[in-house]
Protein backbone atom coordinates (compact mmCIF):
# COMPACT_ATOMS: atom_id res chain seq x y z
CA UNK A 1 0.00 0.00 0.00
CA UNK A 2 2.68 2.45 1.04
CA UNK A 3 5.06 1.49 -1.75
CA UNK A 4 2.51 2.10 -4.49
CA UNK A 5 1.65 5.58 -3.33
CA UNK A 6 5.30 6.39 -2.99
CA UNK A 7 6.19 5.38 -6.50
CA UNK A 8 3.50 7.61 -7.89
CA UNK A 9 4.48 10.80 -6.12
CA UNK A 10 7.51 11.83 -8.17
CA UNK A 11 5.40 12.07 -11.34
CA UNK A 12 2.52 13.83 -9.64
CA UNK A 13 1.94 17.37 -10.88
CA UNK A 14 3.12 20.15 -8.63
CA UNK A 15 0.73 22.95 -7.91
CA UNK A 16 1.87 25.94 -10.02
CA UNK A 17 1.66 28.36 -7.11
CA UNK A 18 3.93 26.15 -5.10
CA UNK A 19 6.53 25.42 -7.72
CA UNK A 20 8.32 28.60 -6.83
CA UNK A 21 9.18 27.47 -3.30
CA UNK A 22 10.75 24.29 -4.68
CA UNK A 23 12.72 26.37 -7.15
CA UNK A 24 12.45 23.76 -9.87
CA UNK A 25 14.05 21.00 -7.83
CA UNK A 26 10.77 19.61 -6.60
CA UNK A 27 10.77 16.31 -8.57
CA UNK A 28 14.24 15.55 -7.28
CA UNK A 29 13.12 16.28 -3.73
CA UNK A 30 10.22 13.88 -4.17
CA UNK A 31 12.61 11.18 -5.31
CA UNK A 32 14.82 11.77 -2.26
CA UNK A 33 11.83 11.80 0.09
CA UNK A 34 10.41 8.63 -1.47
CA UNK A 35 13.67 6.76 -1.18
CA UNK A 36 13.97 7.89 2.44
CA UNK A 37 10.41 6.79 3.10
CA UNK A 38 11.12 3.37 1.61
CA UNK A 39 14.17 2.99 3.84
CA UNK A 40 12.14 4.01 6.88
CA UNK A 41 9.26 1.71 5.96
CA UNK A 42 11.25 -1.28 4.68
CA UNK A 43 11.43 -3.05 8.05
CA UNK A 44 7.67 -2.65 8.53
CA UNK A 45 6.92 -3.86 5.02
CA UNK A 46 9.15 -6.84 5.56
CA UNK A 47 7.43 -7.66 8.83
CA UNK A 48 3.94 -7.32 7.35
CA UNK A 49 4.75 -9.44 4.30
CA UNK A 50 6.69 -12.08 6.24
CA UNK A 51 3.75 -12.65 8.54
CA UNK A 52 1.90 -14.14 5.56
CA UNK A 53 4.76 -16.27 4.21
CA UNK A 54 5.16 -20.03 4.16
CA UNK A 55 8.18 -21.67 5.78
CA UNK A 56 9.81 -22.05 2.36
CA UNK A 57 9.49 -18.37 1.59
CA UNK A 58 10.74 -17.36 5.02
CA UNK A 59 13.97 -19.27 4.69
CA UNK A 60 14.48 -18.61 0.98
CA UNK A 61 17.90 -17.33 -0.02
CA UNK A 62 17.95 -14.77 -1.57
CA UNK A 63 14.93 -13.58 0.43
CA UNK A 64 11.60 -13.09 -1.31
CA UNK A 65 9.63 -9.94 -0.52
CA UNK A 66 6.24 -10.97 -1.82
CA UNK A 67 4.98 -14.32 -0.52
CA UNK A 68 4.76 -16.85 -3.34
CA UNK A 69 1.76 -18.25 -1.51
CA UNK A 70 -0.15 -16.19 1.07
CA UNK A 71 -0.96 -18.07 4.24
CA UNK A 72 -2.46 -17.43 7.67
CA UNK A 73 -0.58 -20.38 9.18
CA UNK A 74 1.72 -18.11 11.18
CA UNK A 75 -1.23 -16.43 12.84
CA UNK A 76 -3.03 -19.66 13.67
CA UNK A 77 0.20 -21.22 15.00
CA UNK A 78 0.81 -18.12 17.08
CA UNK A 79 -2.68 -18.16 18.59
CA UNK A 80 -2.26 -21.88 19.19
CA UNK A 81 1.00 -21.58 21.08
CA UNK A 82 0.63 -18.24 22.82
CA UNK A 83 -2.30 -16.83 24.72
CA UNK A 84 -2.37 -13.71 22.55
CA UNK A 85 -5.90 -12.62 23.55
CA UNK A 86 -4.85 -12.62 27.22
CA UNK A 87 -1.70 -10.56 26.53
CA UNK A 88 -3.70 -8.21 24.37
CA UNK A 89 -6.25 -7.82 27.16
CA UNK A 90 -3.50 -7.23 29.75
CA UNK A 91 -1.91 -4.53 27.61
CA UNK A 92 -5.29 -2.94 26.97
CA UNK A 93 -6.40 -2.93 30.63
CA UNK A 94 -3.10 -1.44 31.80
CA UNK A 95 -3.03 1.18 29.04
CA UNK A 96 -6.64 2.24 29.65
CA UNK A 97 -6.18 2.54 33.42
CA UNK A 98 -2.92 4.45 33.03
CA UNK A 99 -4.49 6.79 30.50
CA UNK A 100 -7.64 7.53 32.50
CA UNK A 101 -5.74 8.23 35.70
CA UNK A 102 -3.25 10.46 33.89
CA UNK A 103 -6.03 12.43 32.23
CA UNK A 104 -7.74 13.02 35.54
CA UNK A 105 -4.82 13.69 37.88
CA UNK A 106 -2.62 15.57 35.43
CA UNK A 107 -5.40 17.91 34.36
CA UNK A 108 -6.35 18.52 37.99
CA UNK A 109 -2.83 19.56 38.90
CA UNK A 110 -2.46 21.34 35.57
CA UNK A 111 -5.54 23.39 36.43
CA UNK A 112 -4.24 24.22 39.89
CA UNK A 113 -0.88 25.29 38.48
CA UNK A 114 -2.38 27.34 35.67
CA UNK A 115 -5.39 28.92 37.33
CA UNK A 116 -5.33 28.69 41.12
CA UNK A 117 -3.03 30.98 43.03
CA UNK A 118 -2.11 28.94 46.09
CA UNK A 119 0.85 29.11 48.44
CA UNK A 120 3.53 26.69 47.33
CA UNK A 121 2.36 26.68 43.73
CA UNK A 122 5.75 27.61 42.31
CA UNK A 123 7.39 24.91 44.40
CA UNK A 124 4.98 22.28 43.13
CA UNK A 125 5.64 23.41 39.55
CA UNK A 126 9.40 23.26 40.11
CA UNK A 127 8.94 19.71 41.38
CA UNK A 128 7.06 18.78 38.20
CA UNK A 129 9.78 20.30 36.02
CA UNK A 130 12.50 18.49 37.96
CA UNK A 131 10.60 15.23 37.62
CA UNK A 132 10.61 15.67 33.85
CA UNK A 133 14.38 15.39 33.91
CA UNK A 134 14.75 12.36 36.15
CA UNK A 135 15.49 9.21 34.14
CA UNK A 136 12.99 6.43 34.74
CA UNK A 137 15.72 3.88 35.35
CA UNK A 138 16.72 5.70 38.51
CA UNK A 139 13.79 4.35 40.47
CA UNK A 140 13.12 0.85 39.20
CA UNK A 141 15.20 -0.91 41.84
CA UNK A 142 13.39 0.34 44.96
CA UNK A 143 10.13 0.40 43.01
CA UNK A 144 10.47 -3.34 42.54
CA UNK A 145 11.20 -3.80 46.24
CA UNK A 146 8.21 -1.61 47.12
CA UNK A 147 5.83 -3.43 44.77
CA UNK A 148 7.10 -6.76 45.99
CA UNK A 149 6.54 -5.64 49.58
CA UNK A 150 3.02 -4.50 48.78
CA UNK A 151 2.33 -7.83 47.07
CA UNK A 152 1.65 -6.09 43.77
CA UNK A 153 4.00 -8.07 41.53
CA UNK A 154 1.93 -9.85 38.88
CA UNK A 155 -1.07 -7.57 39.40
CA UNK A 156 -2.61 -4.86 37.24
CA UNK A 157 -2.13 -2.40 40.10
CA UNK A 158 1.58 -3.13 40.08
CA UNK A 159 1.73 -2.40 36.37
CA UNK A 160 -0.42 0.73 36.52
CA UNK A 161 0.49 2.61 39.71
CA UNK A 162 4.04 3.71 38.82
CA UNK A 163 2.67 5.36 35.67
CA UNK A 164 -0.65 6.58 37.04
CA UNK A 165 0.39 10.25 37.03
CA UNK A 166 3.27 11.58 34.97
CA UNK A 167 5.00 14.94 35.04
CA UNK A 168 4.77 15.30 31.27
CA UNK A 169 0.97 15.27 31.46
CA UNK A 170 0.94 17.97 34.11
CA UNK A 171 3.26 20.13 32.06
CA UNK A 172 1.18 19.66 28.92
CA UNK A 173 -2.12 20.41 30.66
CA UNK A 174 -0.74 23.45 32.41
CA UNK A 175 0.52 24.88 29.13
CA UNK A 176 -2.87 24.47 27.48
CA UNK A 177 -4.93 25.62 30.46
CA UNK A 178 -3.00 28.86 30.70
CA UNK A 179 -4.60 29.89 27.43
CA UNK A 180 -8.09 29.65 28.94
CA UNK A 181 -9.09 33.28 29.66
CA UNK A 182 -9.20 34.21 33.36
CA UNK A 183 -12.27 36.39 32.75
CA UNK A 184 -14.29 33.29 31.92
CA UNK A 185 -13.39 31.69 35.23
CA UNK A 186 -13.97 34.92 37.18
CA UNK A 187 -17.42 35.27 35.62
CA UNK A 188 -18.28 31.73 36.66
CA UNK A 189 -16.98 32.40 40.18
CA UNK A 190 -19.14 35.51 40.42
CA UNK A 191 -22.11 33.37 39.44
CA UNK A 192 -21.25 31.19 42.40
CA UNK A 193 -19.77 28.23 40.61
CA UNK A 194 -17.44 26.06 42.68
CA UNK A 195 -13.90 25.32 41.57
CA UNK A 196 -14.71 21.71 40.75
CA UNK A 197 -17.62 22.82 38.55
CA UNK A 198 -15.40 25.37 36.79
CA UNK A 199 -12.70 22.78 36.26
CA UNK A 200 -15.01 20.04 35.08
CA UNK A 201 -17.61 21.98 33.12
CA UNK A 202 -15.68 24.96 31.76
CA UNK A 203 -11.96 24.26 31.59
CA UNK A 204 -11.99 20.56 30.68
CA UNK A 205 -14.25 21.02 27.62
CA UNK A 206 -12.03 23.87 26.45
CA UNK A 207 -8.85 21.82 26.54
CA UNK A 208 -10.15 18.78 24.68
CA UNK A 209 -7.37 18.94 22.07
CA UNK A 210 -4.81 18.75 24.87
CA UNK A 211 -6.66 15.83 26.42
CA UNK A 212 -6.62 14.09 23.04
CA UNK A 213 -2.87 14.62 22.81
CA UNK A 214 -2.30 13.35 26.32
CA UNK A 215 -4.52 10.34 25.64
CA UNK A 216 -2.48 9.31 22.62
CA UNK A 217 0.87 9.84 24.30
CA UNK A 218 -0.04 8.04 27.51
CA UNK A 219 -1.84 5.18 25.81
CA UNK A 220 0.99 4.51 23.39
CA UNK A 221 3.62 4.99 26.09
CA UNK A 222 1.90 2.35 28.18
CA UNK A 223 1.22 0.04 25.21
CA UNK A 224 4.89 0.12 24.21
CA UNK A 225 6.35 0.11 27.72
CA UNK A 226 8.78 -2.71 28.15
CA UNK A 227 11.15 -2.46 31.12
CA UNK A 228 8.65 -2.19 33.95
CA UNK A 229 6.24 -4.93 32.78
CA UNK A 230 9.31 -7.12 32.29
CA UNK A 231 10.31 -6.55 35.90
CA UNK A 232 6.87 -6.49 37.47
CA UNK A 233 5.53 -9.73 35.99
CA UNK A 234 6.70 -13.29 36.47
CA UNK A 235 3.41 -15.02 35.75
CA UNK A 236 2.91 -15.39 31.96
CA UNK A 237 -0.80 -14.82 32.58
CA UNK A 238 -0.01 -11.20 33.44
CA UNK A 239 2.48 -10.52 30.63
CA UNK A 240 1.79 -7.55 28.43
CA UNK A 241 2.19 -7.94 24.67
CA UNK A 242 5.79 -6.67 24.44
CA UNK A 243 6.93 -8.88 27.31
CA UNK A 244 5.19 -11.92 25.84
CA UNK A 245 6.68 -11.21 22.43
CA UNK A 246 10.19 -10.71 23.80
CA UNK A 247 9.94 -13.91 25.82
CA UNK A 248 8.81 -15.77 22.74
CA UNK A 249 11.55 -14.18 20.61
CA UNK A 250 14.23 -15.30 23.05
CA UNK A 251 12.78 -18.78 23.53
CA UNK A 252 15.42 -21.27 22.34
CA UNK A 253 12.70 -23.87 21.70
CA UNK A 254 11.10 -21.71 19.04
CA UNK A 255 11.45 -23.58 15.76
CA UNK A 256 13.61 -21.70 13.30
CA UNK A 257 11.60 -21.30 10.06
CA UNK A 258 7.99 -21.27 11.21
CA UNK A 259 9.00 -19.60 14.46
CA UNK A 260 10.23 -16.54 12.63
CA UNK A 261 6.96 -16.31 10.74
CA UNK A 262 5.06 -16.46 14.02
CA UNK A 263 7.31 -13.76 15.43
CA UNK A 264 6.57 -11.51 12.46
CA UNK A 265 2.86 -12.26 12.81
CA UNK A 266 3.03 -11.42 16.52
CA UNK A 267 4.92 -8.21 15.90
CA UNK A 268 2.37 -7.21 13.29
CA UNK A 269 -0.45 -7.77 15.78
CA UNK A 270 1.31 -5.56 18.35
CA UNK A 271 2.19 -2.81 15.91
CA UNK A 272 -0.90 -2.64 13.72
CA UNK A 273 -3.33 -1.08 16.23
CA UNK A 274 -0.69 1.47 17.21
CA UNK A 275 0.07 2.49 13.63
CA UNK A 276 -3.63 2.69 12.80
CA UNK A 277 -4.38 4.93 15.78
CA UNK A 278 -1.35 7.06 15.05
CA UNK A 279 -2.18 7.49 11.36
CA UNK A 280 -5.67 8.70 12.27
CA UNK A 281 -4.60 11.01 15.10
CA UNK A 282 -1.17 12.16 13.90
CA UNK A 283 -2.26 15.81 13.86
CA UNK A 284 -2.77 15.77 17.64
CA UNK A 285 0.57 14.06 18.02
CA UNK A 286 2.54 16.70 16.18
CA UNK A 287 0.62 19.42 18.00
CA UNK A 288 1.40 17.87 21.35
CA UNK A 289 5.12 17.49 20.66
CA UNK A 290 5.26 21.05 19.40
CA UNK A 291 3.49 22.42 22.48
CA UNK A 292 5.56 20.46 24.94
CA UNK A 293 8.76 21.26 23.11
CA UNK A 294 8.36 24.94 22.51
CA UNK A 295 6.59 26.19 25.63
Amino acid at each position, binding site marked *: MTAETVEKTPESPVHPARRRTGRGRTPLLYVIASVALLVMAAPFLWMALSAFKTKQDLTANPPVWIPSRWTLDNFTALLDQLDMPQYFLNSLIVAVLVTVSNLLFCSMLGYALAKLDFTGRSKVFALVLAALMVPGNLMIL*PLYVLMNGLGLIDTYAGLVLPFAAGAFGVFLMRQFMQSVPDELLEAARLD*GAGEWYIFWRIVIPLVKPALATLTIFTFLGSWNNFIWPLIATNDPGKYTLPVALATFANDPNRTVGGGNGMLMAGS*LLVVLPVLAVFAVLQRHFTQGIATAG*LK
Partner: protein
Amino acid sequence: MSLTTGPAAPQAAAVDKSPHGGGKAGRNRRGNRSLSKHNLTGWLFSTPFLVLFGVFMLFPIVATFLMSFTDFGARNVTRPLEAEFVGLDNYTQLFQDDKFLKALFNTGYFVIVGVPATIVLGLLAAILLNNGIHRARTLFRVGFYAPVVTTIVAVAVVWRFVLDPSDGLIASLASEVGLTAPDFLGSETWAMPSLITMAVWRNMGTVMVLCIAGLQAIPTDVREAARLDGAGAWQELRGITIPLLRPTLLYATVITTIGYLNVFEEPFVMTQGGPSDSTLTVSLDMYREGFNFFHMGYASAMAYVLFVVIMGITVLQLRLLKDNTR
Protein backbone atom coordinates in the same frame (compact mmCIF):
# COMPACT_ATOMS: atom_id res chain seq x y z
CA MET B 1 -15.16 11.60 26.13
CA SER B 2 -16.64 10.47 29.42
CA LEU B 3 -14.68 13.11 31.26
CA THR B 4 -17.29 15.81 30.79
CA THR B 5 -20.04 13.76 32.41
CA GLY B 6 -20.10 11.40 35.35
CA PRO B 7 -19.17 12.11 38.94
CA ALA B 8 -19.18 15.87 38.54
CA ALA B 9 -22.84 16.10 37.64
CA PRO B 10 -24.48 15.94 41.10
CA GLN B 11 -21.96 18.29 42.60
CA ALA B 12 -22.31 20.72 39.74
CA ALA B 13 -26.10 20.73 40.13
CA ALA B 14 -25.76 21.50 43.82
CA VAL B 15 -23.53 24.44 43.07
CA ASP B 16 -25.94 25.71 40.44
CA LYS B 17 -28.85 25.79 42.88
CA SER B 18 -27.20 27.86 45.57
CA PRO B 19 -25.25 30.68 44.04
CA HIS B 20 -26.53 33.16 46.63
CA GLY B 21 -25.99 30.96 49.64
CA GLY B 22 -22.38 30.41 48.67
CA GLY B 23 -21.85 34.11 48.07
CA LYS B 24 -23.30 35.21 51.40
CA ALA B 25 -21.06 33.01 53.46
CA GLY B 26 -17.96 34.52 51.98
CA ARG B 27 -19.10 38.12 51.83
CA ASN B 28 -18.22 39.05 55.41
CA ARG B 29 -14.57 38.25 55.07
CA ARG B 30 -14.11 39.22 51.48
CA GLY B 31 -10.59 40.44 52.15
CA ASN B 32 -8.75 37.14 52.09
CA ARG B 33 -11.57 34.90 50.97
CA SER B 34 -10.28 34.42 47.49
CA LEU B 35 -6.75 33.61 48.53
CA SER B 36 -7.56 31.17 51.30
CA LYS B 37 -10.19 29.51 49.16
CA HIS B 38 -7.67 28.99 46.40
CA ASN B 39 -5.15 27.74 48.88
CA LEU B 40 -7.45 24.94 49.90
CA THR B 41 -8.70 24.09 46.41
CA GLY B 42 -5.22 24.44 44.94
CA TRP B 43 -3.92 21.81 47.31
CA LEU B 44 -7.00 19.62 46.88
CA PHE B 45 -6.46 19.63 43.13
CA SER B 46 -2.77 18.86 43.62
CA THR B 47 -3.11 16.12 46.21
CA PRO B 48 -3.91 13.05 44.06
CA PHE B 49 -0.97 13.70 41.78
CA LEU B 50 1.36 14.54 44.63
CA VAL B 51 0.46 11.39 46.56
CA LEU B 52 1.12 9.13 43.56
CA PHE B 53 4.20 11.15 42.73
CA GLY B 54 5.51 10.95 46.27
CA VAL B 55 5.00 7.20 46.68
CA PHE B 56 6.03 6.00 43.23
CA MET B 57 8.64 8.54 42.23
CA LEU B 58 10.02 10.64 45.06
CA PHE B 59 10.29 7.77 47.49
CA PRO B 60 12.08 5.49 44.99
CA ILE B 61 14.48 8.30 44.02
CA VAL B 62 15.44 8.83 47.65
CA ALA B 63 15.49 5.07 48.29
CA THR B 64 17.88 4.49 45.38
CA PHE B 65 20.18 7.07 46.89
CA LEU B 66 20.10 5.41 50.31
CA MET B 67 20.44 1.93 48.82
CA SER B 68 23.57 2.99 46.98
CA PHE B 69 25.36 3.23 50.37
CA THR B 70 24.35 -0.28 51.44
CA ASP B 71 25.06 -3.88 50.51
CA PHE B 72 21.38 -4.28 49.49
CA GLY B 73 21.12 -7.81 48.08
CA ALA B 74 18.64 -10.57 47.26
CA ARG B 75 17.59 -11.23 50.87
CA ASN B 76 16.86 -7.53 51.39
CA VAL B 77 14.10 -7.60 48.78
CA THR B 78 11.88 -9.03 51.52
CA ARG B 79 13.80 -7.45 54.43
CA PRO B 80 14.99 -4.07 53.15
CA LEU B 81 15.86 -2.65 56.56
CA GLU B 82 18.45 -5.34 57.23
CA ALA B 83 20.74 -4.02 54.51
CA GLU B 84 24.05 -2.86 55.88
CA PHE B 85 25.58 0.56 55.49
CA VAL B 86 28.84 0.32 53.55
CA GLY B 87 29.63 4.00 53.02
CA LEU B 88 31.14 4.82 49.66
CA ASP B 89 32.25 1.23 48.97
CA ASN B 90 29.86 0.77 46.04
CA TYR B 91 31.07 3.96 44.41
CA THR B 92 34.78 3.27 44.83
CA GLN B 93 34.23 -0.27 43.59
CA LEU B 94 32.41 1.04 40.52
CA PHE B 95 35.36 3.00 39.29
CA GLN B 96 37.61 -0.05 39.58
CA ASP B 97 35.10 -2.22 37.77
CA ASP B 98 36.28 -2.75 34.19
CA LYS B 99 32.85 -3.89 33.13
CA PHE B 100 31.22 -0.69 34.37
CA LEU B 101 33.94 1.46 32.82
CA LYS B 102 33.32 -0.33 29.54
CA ALA B 103 29.59 0.29 29.91
CA LEU B 104 30.33 3.94 30.54
CA PHE B 105 32.52 4.06 27.45
CA ASN B 106 29.89 2.29 25.33
CA THR B 107 27.20 4.68 26.49
CA GLY B 108 29.43 7.60 25.57
CA TYR B 109 30.04 6.06 22.15
CA PHE B 110 26.30 5.69 21.64
CA VAL B 111 25.70 9.35 22.53
CA ILE B 112 28.61 10.84 20.59
CA VAL B 113 27.74 9.05 17.36
CA GLY B 114 24.00 8.71 17.80
CA VAL B 115 22.97 12.20 18.88
CA PRO B 116 24.50 14.20 15.98
CA ALA B 117 23.23 11.63 13.47
CA THR B 118 19.72 11.76 14.89
CA ILE B 119 19.63 15.56 15.00
CA VAL B 120 21.05 16.09 11.50
CA LEU B 121 18.81 13.49 9.86
CA GLY B 122 15.77 14.71 11.78
CA LEU B 123 16.45 18.29 10.75
CA LEU B 124 17.01 17.35 7.10
CA ALA B 125 13.81 15.32 7.06
CA ALA B 126 11.92 18.25 8.56
CA ILE B 127 13.28 20.71 5.99
CA LEU B 128 12.53 18.25 3.20
CA LEU B 129 8.97 17.62 4.31
CA ASN B 130 8.19 21.19 5.31
CA ASN B 131 9.81 23.22 2.55
CA GLY B 132 10.38 20.80 -0.30
CA ILE B 133 7.35 18.58 -0.37
CA HIS B 134 3.74 19.60 -0.60
CA ARG B 135 1.87 16.55 -1.82
CA ALA B 136 1.26 13.51 0.33
CA ARG B 137 2.82 15.26 3.31
CA THR B 138 0.78 13.24 5.77
CA LEU B 139 1.97 10.00 4.20
CA PHE B 140 5.60 11.05 4.49
CA ARG B 141 5.21 12.28 8.05
CA VAL B 142 3.45 9.15 9.19
CA GLY B 143 6.08 7.03 7.45
CA PHE B 144 8.99 8.91 9.02
CA TYR B 145 7.40 9.01 12.46
CA ALA B 146 6.06 5.45 12.52
CA PRO B 147 9.23 3.92 14.02
CA VAL B 148 8.88 6.22 17.04
CA VAL B 149 5.45 4.86 17.95
CA THR B 150 6.38 1.24 17.36
CA THR B 151 7.00 -1.23 20.16
CA ILE B 152 10.73 -1.79 20.56
CA VAL B 153 10.28 -5.54 20.68
CA ALA B 154 8.62 -5.61 17.26
CA VAL B 155 11.31 -3.29 15.93
CA ALA B 156 13.97 -5.61 17.30
CA VAL B 157 12.38 -8.65 15.73
CA VAL B 158 12.53 -7.06 12.31
CA TRP B 159 15.99 -5.53 12.72
CA ARG B 160 17.43 -8.83 13.86
CA PHE B 161 16.31 -10.14 10.52
CA VAL B 162 17.64 -7.12 8.62
CA LEU B 163 21.06 -7.63 10.23
CA ASP B 164 21.16 -11.43 10.17
CA PRO B 165 24.49 -12.57 8.67
CA SER B 166 23.18 -15.66 6.84
CA ASP B 167 19.78 -14.78 5.36
CA GLY B 168 19.33 -11.18 6.47
CA LEU B 169 18.22 -8.34 4.24
CA ILE B 170 21.57 -6.52 4.15
CA ALA B 171 23.55 -9.75 3.83
CA SER B 172 21.57 -10.90 0.81
CA LEU B 173 21.63 -7.47 -0.82
CA ALA B 174 25.39 -7.44 -0.33
CA SER B 175 25.84 -10.94 -1.76
CA GLU B 176 23.96 -9.93 -4.89
CA VAL B 177 26.63 -7.36 -5.65
CA GLY B 178 29.37 -9.76 -4.66
CA LEU B 179 30.12 -8.46 -1.17
CA THR B 180 30.07 -10.25 2.15
CA ALA B 181 28.22 -8.46 4.94
CA PRO B 182 29.75 -8.73 8.41
CA ASP B 183 27.98 -10.57 11.20
CA PHE B 184 26.64 -7.26 12.47
CA LEU B 185 25.33 -8.24 15.89
CA GLY B 186 27.96 -10.91 16.48
CA SER B 187 30.96 -8.67 15.86
CA GLU B 188 32.53 -6.50 18.52
CA THR B 189 33.23 -3.85 15.90
CA TRP B 190 29.84 -3.82 14.22
CA ALA B 191 27.39 -4.52 17.03
CA MET B 192 27.43 -1.00 18.46
CA PRO B 193 27.18 0.82 15.10
CA SER B 194 24.27 -1.50 14.26
CA LEU B 195 22.41 -0.60 17.44
CA ILE B 196 23.13 3.09 16.88
CA THR B 197 21.78 2.89 13.33
CA MET B 198 18.64 1.29 14.65
CA ALA B 199 18.26 3.94 17.35
CA VAL B 200 18.74 6.74 14.81
CA TRP B 201 16.16 5.14 12.54
CA ARG B 202 13.82 4.90 15.48
CA ASN B 203 14.26 8.36 17.02
CA MET B 204 14.80 10.58 14.01
CA GLY B 205 11.04 11.09 13.71
CA THR B 206 10.82 12.85 17.08
CA VAL B 207 13.44 15.40 16.05
CA MET B 208 11.70 15.79 12.69
CA VAL B 209 8.33 16.58 14.24
CA LEU B 210 9.91 19.08 16.65
CA CYS B 211 11.77 20.77 13.80
CA ILE B 212 8.67 20.92 11.60
CA ALA B 213 6.87 22.73 14.41
CA GLY B 214 9.84 25.08 14.72
CA LEU B 215 10.04 25.69 10.99
CA GLN B 216 6.38 26.57 10.82
CA ALA B 217 6.95 29.24 13.43
CA ILE B 218 9.49 31.01 11.16
CA PRO B 219 7.69 33.82 9.32
CA THR B 220 7.64 33.22 5.57
CA ASP B 221 8.59 36.84 4.78
CA VAL B 222 12.01 36.30 6.39
CA ARG B 223 12.64 33.52 3.92
CA GLU B 224 11.28 35.49 1.02
CA ALA B 225 13.42 38.49 1.87
CA ALA B 226 16.48 36.24 1.90
CA ARG B 227 15.49 34.75 -1.43
CA LEU B 228 15.01 38.18 -2.99
CA ASP B 229 18.49 39.03 -1.83
CA GLY B 230 19.66 36.02 -3.80
CA ALA B 231 20.39 33.62 -0.96
CA GLY B 232 20.88 30.03 -2.06
CA ALA B 233 19.49 26.99 -0.28
CA TRP B 234 22.68 26.49 1.73
CA GLN B 235 22.86 30.16 2.74
CA GLU B 236 19.21 30.09 3.71
CA LEU B 237 19.86 27.00 5.86
CA ARG B 238 22.91 28.48 7.59
CA GLY B 239 21.79 32.07 7.79
CA ILE B 240 18.11 31.72 8.61
CA THR B 241 16.80 28.25 9.30
CA ILE B 242 19.40 27.03 11.78
CA PRO B 243 19.71 30.27 13.81
CA LEU B 244 15.92 30.65 14.07
CA LEU B 245 15.53 26.98 14.87
CA ARG B 246 18.15 27.11 17.62
CA PRO B 247 15.76 26.73 20.58
CA THR B 248 14.14 23.72 18.91
CA LEU B 249 17.47 22.14 18.08
CA LEU B 250 18.65 22.76 21.63
CA TYR B 251 15.59 21.06 23.08
CA ALA B 252 15.88 18.17 20.60
CA THR B 253 19.57 17.73 21.39
CA VAL B 254 18.97 17.70 25.13
CA ILE B 255 16.13 15.15 25.05
CA THR B 256 17.95 12.93 22.54
CA THR B 257 21.10 13.01 24.67
CA ILE B 258 19.17 12.13 27.82
CA GLY B 259 17.42 9.30 25.95
CA TYR B 260 20.66 7.87 24.59
CA LEU B 261 22.48 8.15 27.92
CA ASN B 262 19.70 5.96 29.30
CA VAL B 263 19.77 3.54 26.38
CA PHE B 264 18.59 0.13 27.55
CA GLU B 265 16.05 -1.45 25.26
CA GLU B 266 18.12 -1.70 22.08
CA PRO B 267 21.01 -3.66 23.62
CA PHE B 268 18.63 -5.60 25.86
CA VAL B 269 16.49 -6.98 23.08
CA MET B 270 19.13 -7.13 20.33
CA THR B 271 22.42 -8.27 21.86
CA GLN B 272 22.00 -8.64 25.66
CA GLY B 273 25.11 -6.48 25.87
CA GLY B 274 27.29 -8.81 23.83
CA PRO B 275 29.45 -9.82 22.14
CA SER B 276 32.06 -9.54 24.93
CA ASP B 277 30.22 -6.63 26.54
CA SER B 278 30.74 -4.51 23.42
CA THR B 279 27.13 -3.23 23.63
CA LEU B 280 26.81 -3.23 27.41
CA THR B 281 25.40 0.18 28.38
CA VAL B 282 25.20 1.65 31.87
CA SER B 283 21.43 1.08 32.10
CA LEU B 284 21.77 -2.51 30.96
CA ASP B 285 24.64 -3.12 33.40
CA MET B 286 22.48 -1.64 36.15
CA TYR B 287 19.54 -3.85 35.19
CA ARG B 288 21.72 -6.95 35.17
CA GLU B 289 23.45 -6.19 38.45
CA GLY B 290 20.09 -5.35 40.03
CA PHE B 291 17.71 -7.95 38.69
CA ASN B 292 19.88 -10.83 37.51
CA PHE B 293 22.46 -10.83 40.30
CA PHE B 294 20.43 -8.86 42.87
CA HIS B 295 23.38 -6.62 43.71
CA MET B 296 20.88 -3.85 44.27
CA GLY B 297 23.08 -1.59 46.37
CA TYR B 298 25.76 -1.70 43.72
CA ALA B 299 23.22 -1.19 40.93
CA SER B 300 21.80 1.81 42.81
CA ALA B 301 25.21 3.41 42.89
CA MET B 302 25.38 2.88 39.13
CA ALA B 303 22.00 4.52 38.70
CA TYR B 304 23.20 7.57 40.62
CA VAL B 305 26.46 7.85 38.71
CA LEU B 306 24.43 7.80 35.50
CA PHE B 307 22.03 10.38 36.93
CA VAL B 308 24.88 12.72 37.84
CA VAL B 309 26.40 12.30 34.37
CA ILE B 310 23.05 13.07 32.76
CA MET B 311 22.48 16.16 34.87
CA GLY B 312 26.02 17.37 34.24
CA ILE B 313 25.80 16.94 30.49
CA THR B 314 22.34 18.50 30.30
CA VAL B 315 23.45 21.58 32.22
CA LEU B 316 26.59 21.81 30.10
CA GLN B 317 24.59 21.57 26.88
CA LEU B 318 22.14 24.21 27.98
CA ARG B 319 25.04 26.55 28.86
CA LEU B 320 27.11 25.93 25.75
CA LEU B 321 24.26 26.21 23.31
CA LYS B 322 22.78 29.24 25.00
CA ASP B 323 26.09 31.07 24.94
CA ASN B 324 26.40 30.38 21.25
CA THR B 325 23.28 32.37 20.49
CA ARG B 326 24.85 35.57 21.77
